């Protein structure tokens, strides 16, 4: 195992997302590559980090519960008829563009 100084492995751990997605500047890229060549624990972190992303991407898709859309139609109809309070505050009705642009 290499004699990493106090912050080397931590710094590598911090950079793994960008290392993986190819967005590291050349200097940092060389630093991470060089470190992974001589530090098995960091290779372990990186490989298992990659594995987590693979697991996430393979996670079972969401299954639609039976009758969901039908239930929603009813509930929304009920909700609409029960309520005359006017627009609610927290839904940010006017979003990121100037009025009149859409």
């Amino acid at each position, binding site marked *: *195992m290499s*004699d*990493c*100084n*106090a*912050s*080397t*492995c*931590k710094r590598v*751990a*911090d950079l*793994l*997302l*960008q290392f993986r997605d190819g967005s590291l500047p050349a200097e940092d890229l060389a630093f991470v590559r060089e470190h992974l060549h001589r530090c098995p*624990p*960091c*290779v*372990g*972190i990186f*490989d*298992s*980090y*990659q*594995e*987590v*992303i*693979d*697991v*996430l*991407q*393979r*996670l079972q898709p*969401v299954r*639609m*519960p039976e009758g*969901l*859309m039908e239930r*929603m*139609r009813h*509930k*929304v*109809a009920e*909700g*609409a008829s029960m*309520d005359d309070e*006017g*627009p*609610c505050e927290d*839904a*940010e*009705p*006017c*979003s*990121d*563009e*100037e*009025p*009149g*642009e*859409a």
Partner: protein
Amino acid sequence: MSSDAPISALLDPELLIERYGERIFRLARRMTNNDADAEDAMQNTLIKILKNAGSYRGESDPMGWIYRITLNEAREIHRKHKRRPAVSLDSLPIDFDESNHPTGVHDFSRRPDKDAMAGEVDAQIREAIDELPDGYREAVVLHDLEGVPYAEAAKLLDLSLGGFKTRLHRARLHLRKRLDQFFTAHDAKDRS
């Protein structure tokens, strides 16, 4: 996100559910980790959209707006029914030894029993996602599960690109740590 969506679909419950219902439920389900909570979040989201669609002046593709409302509603319900206390991710979720190397690292990516354990691993990951603080859970769900690109996901969460990546990275490292602990415990049980 597709852009063939006239705003009129936001005013008509039938069209709204037909066009966006599945995506709303999927996101809510990922965020809350159970069907009943996801249904509640979906119902609140639909009602809120219908109420506010008349004053919607955003982009011609309202998916970002819809996602935002869905995230808010799901967050609300997840908080109310909190099943696990959220972990703290203020620092990097990796332990280091006295010589500053990561400790207790098991590279489980090459385990021969990986496929046989896929079901258990999935359950562990779901639980670990559930215990992430809201913003971290949202980052993983949006980018790693729903495939929303960095820039769009950052915008949905009101974060800079760098801020979003930091959150996503810490969230992934927490999931990594949880799987690491899971495999360690599993192997210890096998040995005893």
